């Protein structure tokens, strides 16, 4: 467990959008999907997933629908909306720009200055 990374502030929304962009998921499914694609390296406080989900739905980026889960229980499935897709795209771009910028700053050697 020690090797797990705490989630960076503000990145949970992006991860959720990414998770549901691959297909409709219920809340627990979102958690599993994130853990799966992160190779079990991310630590997410499970309860905090829900305020984020409701907030994203409130903003119109994801929509929800009640359906049946694999074990035949009533569950709420979230899927990405068109606005959410645009949001994910722009967030991804922003993140990549930021990450490469930070990386290049950190790579800087004394000689380069």
């Amino acid at each position, binding site marked *: 467990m020690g090797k797990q990374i705490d989630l960076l502030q503000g990145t949970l929304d992006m991860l959720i959008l990414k998770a549901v962009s691959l297909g409709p998921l219920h809340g627990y499914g979102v958690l599993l999907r994130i853990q799966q694609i992160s190779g079990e390296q991310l630590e997410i406080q499970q*309860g905090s997933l*829900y305020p984020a989900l*409701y907030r994203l*739905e409130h*903003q*119109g980026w994801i929509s929800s629908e009640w359906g049946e*889960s694999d074990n035949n229980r*009533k569950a709420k499935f979230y899927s990405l909306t068109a606005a959410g897709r645009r949001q994910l795209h722009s967030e991804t771009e922003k993140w990549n720009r930021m990450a490469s910028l930070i990386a290049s700053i950190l790579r800087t050697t004394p000689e380069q200055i």
Partner: protein
Amino acid sequence: MNFLTRFLSWLKWMVKGQRLESEMETEVRFHIDSRAADLVRKGLSQQEAMRQARIEFGGIESHKDAVRASVGVRWWGELGSDMRHGWRLLRKNPGFAAVAILTLALGVGANTAIFSIVNAVLLRPLPFRDSDRLVRIYFNEPGVGLRDIPFSNPEMDDLQTRAGVFEDVTPIFEGSENMTGAKQPERLEAVNGSFSYFSMLGVTPQLGRLFGPQDFVPGFASTAVISDGLWRRAYGADPNVVGRTLMLDTDPFTIIGVLPRGFRHPGPTVSGDVDVFGAGGLTGDPFPPPIRSNRVLGSGIGRLKPGLTLAQAQARLTAMAAELRHDFPTDYPPQAQWTVEIQPLQETLVGNVRPMLLVLLGAVILIVFIVSLNIANLLLARASGRQQEMAVRLALGASRGRMVRQMLTESILLSLIGGAAGILTAVGTLSFILRFMPSNVPRLNEVRIDWVVLAFALLVSILTGLVFGLAPALHSAKVALSSAIREGGRGSGYSTATGRLRDVLIVSELAFAVILMAGAGLLLRTLRDLLQENPGFHPTQVVTANTWLGVPNDPKTDPYLSIPGMANFDREVLRRMKAIPGVEIAAITSSLPTTNSNPDAVGGLRIERFAIEDRTVESSQDLRAERIRISPDYFKVLQATLIRGRSFTEGDEDGKQPVAIVDESTARKFWPTHDPLGRQVRFGRDPAKPWTTVVGIIKDIKSDGLDIDGVPHIYVSTYQDPSKQVNVVLRTSLPAPQLEPQIRREIQSIDPGLPVFNVVSMDDILDRSLASRRFSADLVGGFAGLAVLLASIGIYGLLAYMVSQRSREIGIRMALGAGRGGVLKLFLQKGIVLAGLGIVAGMVVSASTASLMGSLLYGVRPHDPAVFVIVPVLLFAVAVLASYLPARRATKVDPMIALREA
């Protein structure tokens, strides 16, 4: 951010609040169950798996709360709990709640009631189609200082065709009609206009039809439309009334329609309602031929063409008047500067009562201010007691903003309850208030509590809630954590911050009270002055009665057409009146004092043009006076004083030298350097008429109203110049109701078709003429009294609270040797300083705003010294008394007890 999506989502959750909760619950349970199932698969026991899953999920409630916050419904949840908390606090303290809600109900109720009247009379458009395009048309001669003069039929045609600004115009020919055929003849008010009068206003009948082109005749059409009131009164709401015959001034009219219930003629009236409407060209008999100089029409109404502004229409009319002056120089002498003016119809109807209504509205708004300041004070006192609660909340992590919100929610809850009670009060008392409204206020039949009034009441409630809630709310947010908890909320003294706030509240309360008192003082002084005004005669033991000799459309059927015919009628009436036991002297006049102050109404003040024999035509242009026709004993009945010359005699009759009597002001105005006795005047423009000689000068009589000066009067003998309007005045010690049957019997034994109406004492007539002033003075006076009471309660409460808070300090002071006098001085001084500040502030505001009331005052200047001395002295005395009571209690503090308790 897509605002609409978020709003819809918020709305969804607001509406389905319960569903949000259950959905969250289902979702969370599903999550935990699924996680537990996975953990069981990994080898944990069912029980252990559930435990583990719950731990991993974290605090369920706090996550749910975060969900609520994320969709924006948490705020509402908190509001709900604040409301419940506030409600519990009110229930816990029923005394405070009762006082606050009662005073609020009074304040909001008074505001709602007065505003419902203001709304109906001043704000709501007239109940006609596109009423903003309706205008009243005035003909003026500014060159000789005349406004609203009569006009002729050709001038009406000019407006219709030449002006090009009106969709339609109609003359309004107001008249009195004697309705016969019922058990008693009744005098009705009538309006005759063109056949398009109703279609111009956009009225539809409740029965039959209204006038149309088929009703056009040169004189009067023989068709009539009656009001809902007459239909019910005279015909018992008979649904078959259409087609029946109505006898008016002995002419038969066929009823063609009944107006809807709420319809009122949009013009000045005497009795308050016009009952009969006629139509016609107003050019044939009994009207003189339609030439420009025959100015027989009293007023006109028009509907502007759509899209035309008032200013554009006015500019066109001004230009047209100039063209007419140029085209017809003999009809429009240049120095008179004859012109046409239009005013919005609504303005002409309600303009004269606007100042009174606005002053009343101002007074009730001040009252609600004072009420809310008083409640703010009570709440502040309570807030000091709640310091510990606030401190604990702060310590537990509540934000200060959140606490301000909570306090405000509590206040607004209180104000909404008070406001609801106020609306109920207004609904319950409105009909009572309306009964006392002076009858000269138009449109009172339209007053009701509609959604505009309710919105106003709600606004006033919320604003008062904010006013009285803000002070304690801000105060509670400033609570110093540590000291409040340490002191345990006991409050060892009168803290400076709260103290200063409460001082400000008291000072403003007193200032508002001063403004109300000054206003009330000015109105009451005006009323008192008018009551003491010498009317120029002795109204006590005078009874009056009215009758009206009709004007049949065919002059040949008029028994009172000739001067001798009317004079004989007058003589016969007087002979019979004098024969009534208990009547000492009897006389006749064409216009009773103070009843004809409305210049536009039927039988109202009619100022006529006259000439003086030795003046040139040009200098005679501005000679106008009110002609009053009287019988010889008129001045004797009124006990007016003849200064010089003689009164009329029985010999001043038709065929003899016409005679006139003028009053002192008239004599001074027209003969400033000469003796008017023996001079000659002539009414009208007909040079063939004989001159009338002035034979007497009488002391001024307030003929047009106690508060109206400056109208010249010329009295003429009714035997030489009789009037169809016959008003009997009797000097008698008998009351009017007792005389009424005898007066009616005697007059109707001369002519059974004559109505006898308005049998009242002269005292009542004078009283009625002041009804409007009395109403506003009494109401504002009552509000001022209430304001003083509330302000003194405020200052008393403040000092009593200070005394109780500082009893320990007083104990120490007294233990250290302070005398009772010193302690008394300490508190009395506080009260006096606050009262002084409040009074000075109030006086400054009153002095700078008093002139706004100028139009409501008579004989009193807006800065009347007496009012501005008495008001502060009175209020100061009350304030000192209110401070003395708690200050004296301070001196009764027993040092031993005070110290031990503290």
